[in-house]
């Protein structure tokens, strides 16, 4: 009897302890859990490391194979798209040709309700293979702009090669304009930031302050990020002399300064490359610029120019005239 009486309180106390103390509870519960748990805990790493190399190897091989298939499909798709676009571009360039007549170009753009006031293009030195071709393109596009009635054309060429040939470009472009328009060709001015502009008698007849019919601006990489860095330097110098505080630097100030240092914001940027890469184009100015490119197009052509203008005006292009 006495032993029986002694047992219950002992159990009760241990139970109580087990339920109150989380550690003891865990130890208590453990007795009832299957023992394997612990074994797997210790065994798992070794079995894993044994079976893993093969499995991971197979998995990686599978993934690599899958990637190869994916790349093949993509490349096949890109090839087909290239052929399609190539034919389409050729078709467009046959349908729309300027025949060196401003009237035809005017007719092409007549139905557009808005035209960019400042057009910008990116030309690539290496791709075009030399300054002659570059200048030739500039002259040609200038003529299209003059015919369509776009007053400002900025030409971005990364290396700045064009900037060395401002007078040559002016001469060749004037000749080209002459061949388009005949005797009373539009007046032209070629300029580059920080360099004297070149008008060569074009603006003689114009009253003071009036701008010529077409302004061609050459810009390069140094008018991009570098111009912002230069501006920062200038501002810092002023600040170090105590003429400027942090609060004086505003977006309006930076905008005004950069516009006077380089070019104003263009309305439309045409790329003659198959994909959109800005190649160091001035970052500040490109904020709201419409960027146009034709996928898979590699050539500088009138149809690209025209399609860009149509796209800018949100106008559907009719096939044929």
């Amino acid at each position, binding site marked *: 009897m006495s032993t029986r009486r002694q047992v219950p309180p002992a159990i009760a106390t241990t139970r109580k302890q087990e339920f109150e103390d989380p550690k003891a509870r865990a130890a208590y519960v453990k007795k009832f859990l299957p023992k394997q748990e612990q074994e797997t805990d210790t065994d798992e790493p070794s079995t894993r490391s044994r079976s893993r190399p093969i499995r991971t190897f197979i*998995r*990686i091989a599978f*993934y*690599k194979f*899958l*990637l*190869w298939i*994916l*790349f*093949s499909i*993509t*490349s096949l*798709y*890109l*090839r087909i798209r*290239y052929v399609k676009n*190539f034919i389409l571009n050729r078709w467009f360039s046959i349908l729309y040709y300027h025949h060196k007549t401003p009237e035809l170009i005017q007719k092409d753009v007549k139905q557009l309700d808005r035209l960019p006031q400042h057009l910008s293009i990116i030309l690539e030195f290496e791709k075009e293979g030399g300054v002659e071709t570059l200048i030739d393109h500039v002259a040609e596009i200038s003529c299209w702009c003059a015919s369509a009635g776009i007053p400002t054309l900025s030409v971005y060429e990364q290396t700045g090669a064009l900037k060395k040939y401002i007078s040559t470009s002016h001469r060749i472009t004037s000749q080209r304009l002459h061949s388009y328009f005949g005797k009373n060709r539009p007046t032209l001015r070629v300029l580059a930031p920080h360099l004297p502009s070149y008008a060569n008698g074009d603006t003689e007849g114009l009253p003071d302050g009036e701008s010529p019919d077409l302004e061609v601006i050459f810009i390069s990489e140094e008018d*991009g*990020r*570098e111009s*912002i*860095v230069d*501006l*920062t*330097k200038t*501002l*810092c*110098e002023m*600040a*170090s002399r*105590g003429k*400027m*505080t*942090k609060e004086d*630097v*505003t*977006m309006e100030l*930076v*905008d005004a300064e950069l516009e006077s240092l380089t070019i104003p914001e263009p309305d439309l940027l045409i790329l003659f490359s*198959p*994909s*959109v*890469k*800005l*190649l*160091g184009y001035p*970052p*500040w100015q*490109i*904020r*709201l*610029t*419409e*960027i*146009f490119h034709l996928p*898979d197009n*590699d*050539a500088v052509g009138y149809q690209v120019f025209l399609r860009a203008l149509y*796209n800018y005006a949100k106008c559907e292009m009719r096939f044929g005239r």
Partner: protein
Amino acid sequence: MPSSGLRNSLRTRRWFSSLPPIEWLSLRIQEALIGALRQGPIPQHVAFVMDGNRRFARQSHIETTEGHNLGFEALAKILEICYKAGVKVVTVYAFSIENFKRSKYEVDALMDIAKIKLSQLSQHGDLLDRYGAKIRILGHRSLVNQEVLEAIDRAMELTKHNNKAILNVCFPYTSRDEITSAIQSIVALAIPTKMKGRQLETLTEEAAEAIDCAHEGFPQSRSESPSSNTTMASTIVSGSPAALALLPREHVDFTGVRHKEIVDLESISEQTVTDHLFTADNPPLDLLIRTSGVERLSDFMLWQVHQDTDVEFIDCMWPEFDVWHFLPILLGWGLKRKRFLREMKLDDEQKHNRGSTWAKELGFGEVNGSQNKKTV
């Protein structure tokens, strides 16, 4: 009529894709695709302009707010793909400073969505936590009201410890504002301090040297290892903590990078400006995607979209943007990058005057090579 048809098709598509076997299968396929993508080149930094939520809502005759909600769902899906595939930094254009010009009703709704989604995203065990991503809000803080600011801070605090990936949310942001504030902080560093002890000056010089060295070490060629940017930044901080702690004027930005006082104005370079931007310690931007067919940057990442960033304009609304739109872009990018790397290798080979007759690798990377041939 067409709009209700669109709505119906949307509903049936959703119903269909939520069937258990279909769901399981698509999940498996996605997993396999992502596993495959991981084996090839993957952009380190991807930016999205999430455009077209409103137009999508209008087209499918739902509330604008609902459109924004759907847009967020699309974002969550894309984020998951990005992080799984190994993208380090994702930057999204959530709200432009210009967007404050919209109706008050919509702005408020957007703020509410931002508040809710931020806390949802950063919750323990949710998307960001799962992929070890920390959230960062880039933008003009003073334009946001107190409540949203609190939500932002909480989200940033909660995910602070994650260091595998970054989600940059541009929220009230414009790139011009970003560049301007970068210039501002550089100018602030250039304003001389009158009280400068001799000892402190020498210390600054030492620190300046340390930083300059680190800057020179920055990888200019992007292919090398973009992730080293971050490690560099951290070594700047941890390199000589004692010296830096004594700096008379310094500016610690929200990423924890310290900037020293500018003594020599000629030392200001593109890198200096880059280091003062919100994206200072991020790898260079590899890919920028804009949906809705609008071909403009709209004041987003102007400075960052510099040399080699691929800009893709896609003609679909943001809520519709999914794996099947994203995958071709990633693959196209991968192909281009492979070609680029191969050309780099070829250049290197030619420089070393070793075998110039390089049998062109046959296979899948040849698209553009053949293009060139055709145009010639």
